[in-house]
């Protein structure tokens, strides 16, 4: 291979890359928090007694899990305006990420809820707690602790998947990489660096979420 790497021309574009990383982190942060919120609500709905609600949430989950994120993003950004819903780029990106993560999180959290021992629920009921109280105070914590590693992996997948948001001109990390390589004509180096940054973000995110899980659900994971 005669190719010579030359990363020197990238130095000028540091602000662009920093902006890209910041946007990717921001998208992931908002998408992650809201997506997990949707997941908890969805999981609660799926284990509720209301059959139409269960069906609706089930359909949402299957629809999202069986179509690509890129198509969901295009549908929201390009398709919805013809229905009168016009979102700016980054809002469309966040919405797509929330909807996407929400579906996976629903499924993951539901698995945790299903693993709750019956005796726990009976003990709560025998103390006179209502259904929602039992869910909130008895089921949710240990369930989240149990599925936290799976949820962490899914949040990382969504973060990595956000790279396709460059296609609707959200100025995240991939967009920054595309922009730079169109200027300096060094695509190999640029994508190499961007990939390394994604990897670093993934490692950092995993670390942060592991700490967070330890703090929030201490004991819950060791049932």
């Amino acid at each position, binding site marked *: 291979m005669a190719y010579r790497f030359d990363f020197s021309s990238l130095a000028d574009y540091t602000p662009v890359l920093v902006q890209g990383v910041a946007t990717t982190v921001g998208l992931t942060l908002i998408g992650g928090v809201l997506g997990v919120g949707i997941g908890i609500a969805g999981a609660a709905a799926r284990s509720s007694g209301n059959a139409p609600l269960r069906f609706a949430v089930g359909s949402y989950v299957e*629809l999202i899990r069986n179509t*690509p994120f890129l*198509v969901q993003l295009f*549908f929201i950004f*390009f398709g919805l305006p013809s229905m009168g819903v016009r979102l700016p780029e980054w809002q469309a990106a966040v919405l797509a990420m929330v909807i996407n993560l929400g579906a996976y999180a629903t499924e993951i959290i539901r698995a945790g809820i299903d693993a709750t021992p019956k005796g726990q629920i009976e003990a709560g009921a025998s103390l006179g707690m209502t259904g929602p109280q039992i869910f909130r105070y008895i089921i949710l914590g240990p369930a989240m602790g149990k599925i936290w590693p799976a949820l962490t992996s899914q949040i990382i997948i969504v973060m990595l998947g956000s*790279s*396709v948001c460059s296609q609707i001109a959200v100025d995240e990390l991939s967009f920054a990489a595309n922009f730079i390589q169109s200027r300096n004509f060094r695509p190999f180096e640029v994508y*190499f660096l961007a990939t390394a940054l*994604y990897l670093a973000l993934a490692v950092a995110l995993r670390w942060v979420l592991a700490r967070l899980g330890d703090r929030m659900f201490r004991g819950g994971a060791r049932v």
Partner: protein
Amino acid sequence: MYNFTLWDILSNLLLAARWTVLLSVIAFVCGGIAGILVLLARVAPLRPLRTAMKLYIELFQGTPLLMQLFIVFFALPLTGIETSPWTAAAVALTLFTSAYLAEIWRGCVEAVPRGQWEASASLALSYGEQMRYVVLPQALRIAVPPTVGFSVQVVKGTAVTSIIGFVEVTKAGTMITNATFQPFLVYGLVGLIYFVLCYPLSLSAKALERKLNVAR
């Protein structure tokens, strides 16, 4: 301006969907074969090899498929291979698939109880023989549902190849949208086509898992 009927749109999308299917099958089959090699190296009784494969898997699981596509797209020409979006897509998705499948299968190999290794060792089987006759047959059984489940990720992953210009169903959707100005309809149909491809796979993965749980 030429007027597109619903059938025009759908038939064009379906024609493009053939490429989605073909790419998925190639990535899944080649990725599966490569995945077996990665798996064997990942669990080999040879630490450097295990570490190398661990890094390989983490690299592909820790970076976006889009970046992998770009790098393969720009790296292949350096090795003298003529690069079209098609070859770049097939190569990148194969590597991507091999890493994920190897990791899924590693979990299955590790789920085989230690006693099985010990019993076969005490019968004087070599490492290779233990793998082939005792461990892999058992791991294979539990590997089927998650493997089928992962095929859904491969099909969906092919959508990203539209970004490097491979004309599969998502790219076709974009092109048709540009001609018809009906993004809601076109992307809706694109989504539907993916759903029709993926949902049966998801369902069978679930059914297989249920069957396995009953059998145990």
